[in-house]
């Protein structure tokens, strides 16, 4: 999109919205990072790099975690740091194996909280079957960071015959989601200072590698996988539509949204489609394999609420179209701005 020729002084600095996972994040990546780092592996713009080494294909990824609050219903920053990276690897179909963990700690951060977070990381790593094999710690002056930031990187092995990428969606594919959307976003919001409202909702934060492995066991006819984290379902579907140059048509009535999430959205004027998820995946799969894959997803504890929410079509290219509950249609746009900063 064209930039304003006369910047009103917002253009020369990073804004929170640049980190929201939506349109402005995409812009930042394109205008700064892609320009500088350009190479064929990065150019694919998937959530992980795919590397060929020793006759095998490896998935490699990194992510930083700055969520606030650091403890929230259903998880904490440590659990999130493991799940996030494990999930990014899993979205290539890879079996995640090894992780690194870097900590940036603010002077004065309580030991007890750090121990709790580290224990939670270890527990989640065990659950996901990965090992944390290298790490780093930095401490910064009080005020130099907000309590604790964590970076994790990870590497995983992609099984033979698996070829999954955001660029692989084709017309005819069915679009699947593994469960209800928005749980993480609302769980984080509900525990934020100034916004406390009571909800029984917990974050869906979970490692998805086992679910992906089960799906691949029944069929390798999976074309795209992506976890709708920051920017939510809207941004993720738009990314896939753009990368694959296809249209994604979804049906509002088929998209699972919990009542608590819907209620909170109503109250706060938010759209569940842009809320973050940390334990959900979206897949586009060949039409003949859709029912088979859906069935195995529903058997898995992390896919109980799985549903087919739409399909991939040729036109209109690079757009997401929603059939609304009253039978009309509309565009689903990528998130713009920053409704909920620091959710992951």
């Amino acid at each position, binding site marked *: *999109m*064209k*930039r*304003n*020729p006369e910047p*009103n*002084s*917002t253009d020369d*600095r*990073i*804004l*929170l*919205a640049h980190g929201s996972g939506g*349109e*402005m994040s995409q*812009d930042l990546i394109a205008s700064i990072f892609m320009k500088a780092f350009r190479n064929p592996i990065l150019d694919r713009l998937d959530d992980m790099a795919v590397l060929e080494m020793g006759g095998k294909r490896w998935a490699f990824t990194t992510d930083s975690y700055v969520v606030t609050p650091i403890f929230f219903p259903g998880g904490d920053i440590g659990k999130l740091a493991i799940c996030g990276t494990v999930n990014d690897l899993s979205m290539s179909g890879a079996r995640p194996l090894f992780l690194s963990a870097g900590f940036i700690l603010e002077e004065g951060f309580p030991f007890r909280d750090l121990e709790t977070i580290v224990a939670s990381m270890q527990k989640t790593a065990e659950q996901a079957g990965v090992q944390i094999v290298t790490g780093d710690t930095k401490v910064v002056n009080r005020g130099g960071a907000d309590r604790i930031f964590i970076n994790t990187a990870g590497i995983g092995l992609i099984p033979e015959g698996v070829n999954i990428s955001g660029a692989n969606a084709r017309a005819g594919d069915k679009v699947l989601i593994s469960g209800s959307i928005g749980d993480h976003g609302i769980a984080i919001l509900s525990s934020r*200072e*100034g*916004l406390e409202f009571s909800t029984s909702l917990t974050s869906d934060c979970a490692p998805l590698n086992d679910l992906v492995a089960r799906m691949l066991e029944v069929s390798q006819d999976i074309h795209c996988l992506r976890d709708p984290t920051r920017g939510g379902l809207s941004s993720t579907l738009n990314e896939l539509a753009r990368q694959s140059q296809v249209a994604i048509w979804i049906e509002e*009535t088929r998209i699972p949204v919990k*009542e*608590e999430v*819907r*209620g909170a959205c*109503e109250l*706060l*004027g938010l759209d569940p489609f842009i809320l973050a998820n940390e334990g959900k995946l979206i897949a586009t799969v060949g039409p003949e394999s859709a029912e088979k894959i859906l069935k195995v997803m529903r058997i898995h504890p992390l896919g109980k609420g799985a549903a087919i929410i739409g399909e991939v079509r040729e036109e209109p290219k690079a757009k997401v179209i929603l059939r*609304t*509950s*009253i*039978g*009309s*249609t*509309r*565009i689903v*746009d990528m998130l*713009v*701005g*920053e*409704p909920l900063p620091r959710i992951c």
Partner: protein
Amino acid sequence: MKFIDEFRDGEKAKPLIEEIHRLADRPIRLMEVCGTHTVSIARYGIRKILPETIDLVSGPGCPVCVTSNRDLDKAISLAQVPEAVILTFGDMVRVPGSFSTLAAERAKGRDVRVVYSPLDGLNMAEKEEKHPFIFLGVGFETTAPTVAATIQEAQKRNVKNFFVFSAHKTVPGALKTLLTSGELKLDGFLLPGHVSAITGSYPFAFLPRDFGLAAVISGFEPIDILQSILLLIRQVKNHQPRIEIQYRRGVQPQGNPRALEIMGQVFEPVDAEWRGLGRIPQSGLALRTEFSAMDAARVFDLPLPESKDPEGCRCGEVLRGILRPPECALFAKVCNPQNPIGPCMVSFEGSCAAAFKYET
């Protein structure tokens, strides 16, 4: 929250849509004057399923959008008060004033916090008493009572570092101004459910009485809106303009007396400048003198250069309903939600943002 689904049900929509198509045998133009309606209409694709004869236009229903650049400049400049914390609803953060935005001020290091309720802001102020907390009160009759109650609460708790910048506005005067100008030919109004929940239906009685216009107070779900459109068409076709309340689960004819009382205790009507509509007598709400110690406009009177409207921006005409967002030369070309030139493209409730997000 189960009740919401009832109003999003496709099966219930079908007969309504059919009936609208059956009755709409001549052109009827209806205006919605609530940003939430604008968003719902776009989000559920309501325009697309209506017959071509039914023309829905958006009016001055987005509080952020109708705020004049002068008021925006004042609000944004408050971020420069030493040590100040600015409390605001989310959609104000990126609205461009003449010189800056709150987002830009925050990037420069000013403390700008998004709150969902002014009471949360008051609680923050109580905890951090060294900082002046300034709440930016932008909104209609829906928001004003909560802000008024918070001001009373601040006084009760004796919180000395909580201030309110009031750019609140009231809706009926704006509609009257719009109609008196005669530049827009309308058949009826889809009236705002939330505003009417506070004011009741009485303040809108002049619409059928003085202007012969149909009027229905509507809820916000797609079924609500379809039902209301149907009621409006019937009123128009039967030549029986009156005020009907479709949004019965939210609105009493007499409104909410308690909220009106609190609002009256704290605020007094003043003339106010509206974007696109100019100065409208008695359509703004200022803090009464008893509360002047909390009135940010009086306490922090910052010198400001002359305000200027963004070049080429036609938000004013969009707010008057005489220009559709895609008809503006800037729309989707230089002006988009990422890089908004005017407020109608920024606010969640703005007509340009809704048209860009859902209808382009």
